[in-house]
Every structure is written in structure tokens, then in C-alpha cells.
């Protein structure tokens, strides 16, 4: 019997699921090995047992907690798909402000049906088995994690910084252009796609396990950033809260 996989979403832009669908031919090949049993963007069925659930988005409402727990109950392996699910992602920017004020600013009313609370990553509500970081995820990394799970192997994420992939690709260093880049402390795996596109790294994949924060902060200070500026840099993708 094929491995049954499902895709679910909570608060997020669905860009990670879109990345999966954009895999197109590769996805069709994968479908030879798995059966997609739930995927709101593709189908309306629901099943009772799922082997692997890929879940996108953060948990922002009370009713989301119950829904996530039911998914967990019928799933063998639960994978957080993308930054919002993995560590809260950009959603967590909301936690730095008063929710009532924020709601008024965004919806200009109480918007009762959109009554949100402080956004949470999945692991604060249920047990998360594996994670695929990034905003959005990297399609190749999704395939690699899926492959590993299908082979009963531990999926492993790169534990070195984006700088490595940047140097391998011979891209110019953002700092050389006076740009502040989070590449030196951010987990690789994206093939430095933002640098390739002419942008800087904003840290969407979260920190490496062992970020060299003090030399990094020294570099940032050399480029004229204060501690507050540094924290602001980290805040976009909710990384480095512990720094």
C-alpha cells in the first residue's frame, strides 16, 4: 500500500503548499510512491488515517488548537511545513503589539470571525516530528525530507549557514554592498536563492543550531548597527528570540 500523505494549512499564505504543487513533474513522479489523501488545494476528501501530514501555517485561533490536535491524532508522522508552522514565521510579528490595536489597524473593526490570539508555531500545541523550514519552503528540501521518510531514514537539515551555499555559488557578499545579511547565522538549504535574486538573506529558515552570534554581532556593529537594529533584523522571521 502506498504511503498516505496529507497537506493541511492554518494561518499562512499557502505559499509552501504552492511550492509543492509547483514541483510539477517531480511531484507527479512522487505520486507514483505516495497517495495524497487530503489536500485542500486539490481535493475535498477526508480520511481517518494519515501516514505523513505536512502542515502549513501558525496557530492563531482557539478553534485551530482542536483541529490541529485531531490531525495529530490520526497522523503517524507530522511535519511542520514552512516558517509559519515551524517557528511562527512572519506571523509572530503580531506578538510584539497589542492584538486589539492590531486588529483595529488591519480590519478597522472588531472582526469577530477573525478573532485571533498570539500566533503559535505548531510545536507549542502538538508534538512535531520533523520540520521543513523557510518562507516559503525549498521544493527540493521538501522532496528530500519526503524521500527520507519513505525510506525510514532521519531527514537531516543542513547545519551550516547560508554563507556556505552563497560561497559555493560564487555570489557576491551582501555586506560588500553595505547590505545587512542574515546569511552568516541562517540555516542553509535554500541555495542562497535570495542572494541569487539580488536580495539579502532575511533569515526565513531560522538559525543554525550553533549560530556564531558574537562574531556576527561584531560584524553588524562594524556595519553601523545597534543592538536594537540587530534585534529588528532578527524579528522579521522570528529568529533569534533567544539571542
Amino acid at each position, binding site marked *: 500500500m502506498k504511503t498516505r500523505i496529507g497537506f493541511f494549512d492554518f494561518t499562512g499564505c499557502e505559499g509552501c503548499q504552492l511550492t509543492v504543487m509547483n514541483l510539477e513533474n517531480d511531484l507527479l*513522479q512522487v505520486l507514483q*510512491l505516495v497517495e495524497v489523501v487530503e489536500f485542500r488545494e486539490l481535493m475535498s476528501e477526508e480520511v481517518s488515517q494519515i501516514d505523513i501530514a505536512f502542515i502549513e501555517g501558525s496557530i492563531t485561533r482557539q478553534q485551530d488548537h482542536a483541529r490541529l490536535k485531531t490531525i495529530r491524532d490520526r497522523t503517524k508522522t507530522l511535519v511542520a511545513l514552512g516558517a509559519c508552522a515551524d517557528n511562527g514565521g512572519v506571523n509572530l510579528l503580531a506578538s510584539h503589539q497589542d492584538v486589539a490595536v492590531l486588529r483595529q489597524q488591519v480590519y478597522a473593526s472588531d472582526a469577530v470571525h477573525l478573532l485571533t490570539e498570539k500566533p503559535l508555531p505548531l510545536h507549542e500545541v502538538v508534538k512535531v516530528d520533523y520540520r521543513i523550514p523557510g518562507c516559503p519552503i525549498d521544493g527540493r528540501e521538501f522532496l528530500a525530507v519526503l524521500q527520507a521518510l519513505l*525510506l525510514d531514514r532521519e531527514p537531516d537539515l543542513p547545519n*551550516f549557514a547560508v554563507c*556556505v551555499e552563497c*560561497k559555493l555559488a560564487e555570489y*557576491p557578499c551582501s555586506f560588500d554592498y553595505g547590505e545587512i545579511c542574515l546569511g552568516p547565522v541562517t540555516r542553509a538549504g535554500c541555495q542562497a536563492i535570495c542572494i541569487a535574486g539580488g536580495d539579502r538573506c532575511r533569515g526565513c529558515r531560522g538559525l543554525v543550531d*550553533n549560530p556564531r552570534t558574537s*562574531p556576527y554581532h561584531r560584524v553588524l556593529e562594524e556595519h553601523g548597527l545597534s543592538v536594537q537594529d540587530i534585534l529588528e533584523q532578527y524579528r522579521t522571521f522570528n529568529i533569534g528570540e533567544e539571542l
Partner: protein
Amino acid sequence: MPADLSLTIAQDSQDETLWLAMSQADILRFARALMQAYDVVAPRRKKGRITLGSLNDAAELELEFPPSVHSPKKFLFPHWDELFRFKLDGNVLLEAESAAPPRIIFGMHPCDLHAVTILDDCLFEGETDSAYRAKREATLLIGVDCVPDEHCFCTSLGTDRIAKGFDLFFHRRDDSYLVQTGSAQGRQLLTDHAPETMAGPREAPLALQVKRCDSHLQFPTESLPLLMKDAYKDPIWKKLGTDCLGCGGCTLLCPSCYCFNVQDKLELNLKEGQRVRTWDSCQFDQFAKVNNGDDFRSSQSDRQRHRFYRKYKYLWDQHKRTACVGCGRCSRECLAKIKPTEVLNDLFTQAPSQQIANSPGSEYQPQMAKVERIEVISTEDRLFRLKIAESFNFQPGSFLQISVFGLGEAPFSIASPPDGSDEIELVVRRAGALTQALHRVRAGDSIGIRGPFGNGYPLEKMAGHDLLLIAGGRGLIALRSLMLALLAQRENYGRITLLCGARTIDSLLFQEDLLEWHRSGLIDCRFAVNEQHNSWGIPAVDVSYLFRDLEINAGRTIAAVSGPAEMYRQINPLLFRLGLSDEDIYLNLERHMKCGLGKCGKCRINNICVCECGPIFPYSSVKHLAEAIEK
């Protein structure tokens, strides 16, 4: 073809180096022809950077360009290198490695050519790495000259030029080029793809170009192994560890770093895959980790140190060359600004001066030191206070070489303590021509000094112990350095007793100091002079007499003995009788230490050099040496 020219060609032997002229147009034609048969890799401009890549249009070939981001390693030892393919079901199926494409790297700087010879050394050694060899054999290397940038330090490592290791090398000559052949394949390339050039006249070899690097080592590379030998515990590694971002850029970009990882990459059908080799880095967290979680190089300091030792020490031990070619890639791309030249120069500056030579013969060159003050301390002895350029570390008992130009050089014990001061004291007794000349020196004059040299009394070991100091004659000079060092931290030591022997009261040095220390209870000083009816009214005895009413606690006493060998023959048995162990008796075995560098052989005691291993020795390490104390 003129007859005389064909004669010339016939006389060319296959391995003789040819120098031939080529114009820009000739080179363009040559490159076009090469592109028909080879994948021609050359510098390409990408986002304002020079990267090596396949040439699409021969007109884009550049022969003068700054260092490329990655070295040609990316083609010879690529980051993603398929070792073999396999199928998952049943037996693993090995497929033959696909043949490496015939390739020419057109634009190898001398440093990069040197780096290839390092890769050859490492990857052909022992079990030949066949995946590398396949690419190496299918790749021809064409060198071009370069202009060093601010990160290059090739001139320090001798890698700014190369005599072999290329197939062809293009040298700029005015508006055109001279091509130098470096191999039979290189000649064949010209024969096949630039026949007009091959038919042209043989040119004279070009004189070597002089290059200049802003970054450079302050010492010759031959000194690196010595420098690194003693640098393993240097605090500099800790500093590097706190500066380093751990991105591994230094090793990934290094043209000679080849550490790798091997992984299986599967096709999407999960039925087959490839085993690939990818670059790894000793700077990464998982590099030296093992399955149980242990990490054998867990701190970034350890990792940076490992990198430097791999580059500058370990390969030297095997192949007598560094694994660094001074291309500057590591520092050019380092966000933390770690520069190998700065690290090595720092180590060099801190290293004891006798270890490393600045330039040929410089270890023999004295530094000039100004004489601050001269004090007459006996009819024959003068105390010289010298101002030195920079304070140095030494142990009491170490010595300096003092030069008087025209008369030579002689060793003198340092009489002052190691207190970090930039003033040093020596005692010079008038004896031969050199010391007589020194006695004519006036305050304000300069004399030559070299050193400090040698091992002295172990202050650290002495802490917390009672000390029994025994001086005979001028042996007191080395002990004065020791006593002043002990007094500077008197509370760190127990009872200090000095047994001091001299021929006459007049020849007893530092009398006032000794009496003062004795009176104030800092050091229990006892004297013996071989002079009847002396001015102090003490009996004429030798120093062994002073042992008679000596009470010491043998378990907590260390003896420091300094005097003539004859005195040791007398004293040592008395020390053993007191219960002192071989390890706790330190003897000053000064000989004629001519060079101070462990080379000249004049101070040898049997098989050891006093200047290197002494002059202060624990008895335990010299008791087996027949020449040490016995007659």
C-alpha cells in the same frame, strides 16, 4: 618552411621547453580551435566577479584578470562528484564512472598551478583517488601571469611563479605574449591547434617577473614548521575562535583544501541513486562529530587551529611544503576578516627570537642595546645595565650573547630577574680581549646582544617550596637573577637559604645586597671563603663546610646549585645525604655556548647541547652523562 627552421624543430627534444611568440589574434585563433575539441574553461565575469566557467565565445577569453572567486579546484575536484550509481533493489549495481570530459583550463595563475601540485601530492599519495585522477588526466592546464591584489601573499610562499606543472604558460611581452611549453601535451596542443606558432621562431626565455604583494609574511616559510611547533597552545587560536563565523568559506574557497563528505542521493523513484562526494569543511559543526554525540573538535578555536596546522605544518612534515599557496581567497571572502598573514606574523612576533630567522643568517645577527649604567662591583667585575628594544621572557639562569664587533661574541648569564622590564643586567669580569673591551665601554654606548637563550631555574615549580641555593664564585650571578625573582614574590616561597662560597671576600659579588637580605630575614645567607685572615673574620673553609649545621626539610626543598663542576662533585653527595631527590636538584652546567642555537657543538655534553637543553638542568636529566660533572 625554410630548411634551417625545420632543422631547428627536428632538434627540439620532446621535453625541452619552447618559448614562442603569439599575438592577441594568434591566441584568439588558438582558443577557437581548442573549443572545437575541448571544454575550455576560462575566467568569466559574473555579477562583477571573476568566476571560472566554460567559454562560449573565444573572443571573451581574458588572459589578465584578478584572482577568481573559486580556484580551478571546482573542476578538478568538484563540489558534487558522482562516484558511482546504484540500484536499491537487490544487489547494489555499480556503473562505470562516466569518463571525465576532455577539458582545458585556460587561465591558471601560478598560485593555482601550485595548488594543483598540492592536490596531486595529497590525492595520489597512498591509494590513488581515481575520481580525481580521471579529471586530472583529462584536463590540460594553461597558465597565465597575474598581478597580486591586497590579499595575495604568494611572494612570501614562492608561489608567485612556477617552472613546471602546466602544459602551457602565457607570459605577457609588450603587446603580445610569449607562450612557454611545460609538457609534451602542451607542445602537442600547439602543434595541433596553433601550427603557425609552432612553425615560428624559437624565442629566448623571458626573465622572471618581479611581483610585489602588500600582504606578506615577515619571516621565511622555512621557519613555519618551527613556528607552528610551539604555537599549538598559543592564545591566538582562542581569539580566532571568537572572531570566526564558522561559515567554512576559507576552506571551501581554498584551492588545496580537499576534505569531503560522501552521501547517497536518490532519484525520485527511490529505485536508484548516486553516491556523491561533496566538499566538507573542518570549520563546520558536524565535521568531527561521531554518532554518540562526541565532537572531537568542538570549539571554533580548535577548528581554526586545525585549519592553520593543516595548511602550514602537517603537510610540511610530509612533503616539505605548505598546503597554502598564498592566493588570499580565504581572507578575500572572510566576513570576519581573518587573514593568514596577520595570524602567522602575530605568532612570529611573539615567538622567542632564537627560534625563527628573519633572513638567511639573521639568527646570528645581534640587536643593538644601549648601555644605561655601569657599576664597578669588584676589582674585576662590572655590572652593566642595558636598555633593550623590547622586553623578553626568560628564566633565571638563561644567558645572552654579547658582541663586540671586531672581537666576537661571548655568552653571559643574565643577572637581573625576568620582570618584564626593558632593562637587563649582566656582570662582566675582565679576562680576555672581549671582556677588556667591554670594560672600556661607557654609559651611552651601544653593544650587540643576541638571545635570551636556554632554560633556567623553574620558578613555577619552586613556588610553595623551601629553597636551598648554593653558589660557588661567579655561579652567584645566575642565582642573583633567581633570588631577585624569588624576592619579588617572596610570599610564594618557603624558607630560602643561600650557601655562598668565594675565593676571597673581595671577589664575593653583591655583598651589600646579600647582607641586607640576610639581615632582613628574607634569605638566610651563609658564607664560606678560602682566604685565611679575611676581613670578615670568618674561618677559611669551602662551601661544603656550610652543610654541617644545615637543617632542611628534604621533602619540600628544591636545590638550585650554580658554580664550577668541581663544586658539584663535592656538593651533590651532601645533597643526596640530606634526602633531596634527583629531580629536585638543579645544576648550572654552563659551557662555552658559542652559537646559542644548538648548532655549533661547542657546548655539547655527550649528546646534548647545553644552550638548548640547559644551562640549568635537573640532576635527573644529566646524571647519565659522563661529561656533565665527572672529570
